[in-house]
């Protein structure tokens, strides 16, 4: 029983909707720049990939109060776009679910509240931190878009929204839901920036994924959602979906809290599992959207896993984090949307700023936008802290 993708929605450093993102990807315009919105001591040192809208502007777009967490606003905008894109029938009683992932929750508001509050327990607006925890962000958006049938929040770091997507697929396959909006969101916060800085995996220049001399990642923010429907609902839609989620898998690397095993065991198991589920051969994958963060560790682990699994038949690969930065909890969702677009438009996105291919890998990412391709199947990888590795495969219906 297939699961169809009926709609997509995205907001990131390279665009505030699907069309803008697509345009930037095609033109090679990335969103990594000096910090403009976040207040941080690292402002002049660390480039980031912020969504190019202030909280006030986002609030207006999202139809939410500007006192609401930026994470929720980003989530709202992308989820609404996906929903509109799906053009669901209005007069059918559908069992709806909203599965959203994030890692920071309402932290952006909390970290502004905290210093005032620490100094003086009567200071600070308590209402600002009411939506601190991850689940609140999801519930808030679920209520606004009317998808309150079944709501769940997944928090597994960088693989969160990929996990949300295949969890959504399971709800459909097990006849628990008819339509699921699934994906994730995250906004840039000092908490995350300082944390990643202390792990010394941030690049002080725009990142260079899969480059021999890569220095680390750039943090980003955004949200990405897909609308998943069953075959029955797909048949009812005005615009018949042309993409399916045909395979997915999740595995644990069981190696270290934040580093990947050098031979990429977890990555290998996730990709292999997704292929087995879809029944596809490695040679049938037309493009891999890499997790490709640009850290020394991830890229060699992921690259090694691909080398082992695809063994000589390497499809075009690229990391769109070279455009959007690493959007953490949103990355699986945003990159799922990009993978769907790649399939629909028959194109492959470039891996920007590649200068020296990694010497230990027998393949390298593509560096130019290519279209007019006959793509049937696209794979998207998302590997998170805690050893949580996920891989999704989208196919043309």
């Amino acid at each position, binding site marked *: 029983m297939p699961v169809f993708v009926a709609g997509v929605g995205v907001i990131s450093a390279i665009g505030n909707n699907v069309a803008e993102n697509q345009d930037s990807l095609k033109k090679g315009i990335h969103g990594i720049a000096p910090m403009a919105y976040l207040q941080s001591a690292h402002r002049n040192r660390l480039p980031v990939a912020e969504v190019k809208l202030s909280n006030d502007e986002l609030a207006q777009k999202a139809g939410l109060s500007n006192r609401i967490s930026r994470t929720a606003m980003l989530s709202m905008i992308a989820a609404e776009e996906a929903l509109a894109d799906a053009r669901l029938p209005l007069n059918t009683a559908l069992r709806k679910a909203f599965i959203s992932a994030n*890692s920071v*929750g309402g*932290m952006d508001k909390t*970290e502004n509240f*905290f*210093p005032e509050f620490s100094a003086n327990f009567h200071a600070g607006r308590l209402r600002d931190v009411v939506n601190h*925890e*991850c*689940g609140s962000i999801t519930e808030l958006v679920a209520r606004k878009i009317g998808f309150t049938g079944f709501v*769940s*929040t*997944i*928090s*597994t*770091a960088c693989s969160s929204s990929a*996990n949300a997507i295949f*969890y959504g697929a*399971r709800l459909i396959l*097990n006849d*628990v839901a008819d339509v699921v909006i699934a994906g994730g969101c995250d906004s840039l916060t*000092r*908490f995350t920036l*300082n*944390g*990643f*800085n*202390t*792990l*010394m995996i941030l690049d002080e220049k725009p990142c260079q994924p899969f480059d021999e001399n890569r220095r680390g990642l750039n943090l980003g923010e955004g949200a990405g959602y897909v609308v998943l429907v069953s075959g029955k609902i797909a048949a009812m839609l005005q615009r018949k979906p042309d993409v399916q989620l045909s395979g997915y*898998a*999740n*595995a*644990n*690397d*069981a*190696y*270290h*809290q*934040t580093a990947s095993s050098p031979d990429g*065991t*977890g990555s290998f*198991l996730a990709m292999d*599992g997704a292929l087995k589920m879809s029944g596809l051969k490695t040679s049938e994958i037309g493009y891999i959207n890499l997790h490709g963060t640009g850290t020394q560790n991830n890229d060699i682990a992921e690259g090694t896993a691909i080398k082992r699994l695809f063994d000589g038949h390497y499809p075009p690969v690229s990391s769109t984090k070279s455009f959007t930065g690493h959007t953490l909890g949103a990355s699986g969702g945003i990159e799922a949307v990009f993978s769907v677009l790649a399939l629909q438009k028959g194109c492959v996105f470039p891996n920007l700023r590649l200068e020296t291919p990694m010497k230990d890998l027998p393949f390298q990412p593509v560096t130019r936008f290519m279209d007019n391709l006959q793509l049937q199947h696209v794979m998207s990888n998302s590997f*998170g*802290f*805690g*050893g*949580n590795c996920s891989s999704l495969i989208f196919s043309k219906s």
Partner: protein
Amino acid sequence: MRELISITSAVSVHRGQIVHNGKLVFEEKEASAGQFLLSAYKYTGAAYPKFYKMDGLCKLGWIAAEYLLKDKSANSLIQDFSTGIVLANRNSSLDADLKYHQTVSSIPSPALFVYTLPNIVIGEISIRHKIKGENAFFIQDAFDAVFMEQYVRILLNNDKLQSCICGWADFLADDYKAVLMLVEKNKAGIEFNAQNMLTYF
């Protein structure tokens, strides 16, 4: 025909007590959360220095898993990717978040930052017992047994996994509660369903 799915081992760690399969196996009341977990660790007799570096949630989950799998690790049950882990909690990694946040004003601590995600506890359990199967972490208001039963059944019925560790692990300040259950196919045990899971809470 539905395969037999059973809970073959269950551990609860709460209010100074560790109960394994209905038996009280360790107790230290009147101790703070930190002291209790440390004592419980020493009592297991395990030599695992990395335990000391873990945050409260990970220590809690690690200890619960240690008892849960006590009689199982010798068994070839736990193999690579046929065992999965699905956990949920209410407070995410808030305890670790707060501790980490305190260091941000001086020098942020990498060792603390590493724990500011709830699913790291799954990572720690996986590393300890070499478990590589599917894993997920959910944030819920309270343990949703119906949800958990459904999720784990999907994984076991579709042959994604042969066994699964599932349950709840929550830690905040001095409040902690972990209930871990080992769910296996075609083994003797208590029938796996929402009602039976709730009896451990």
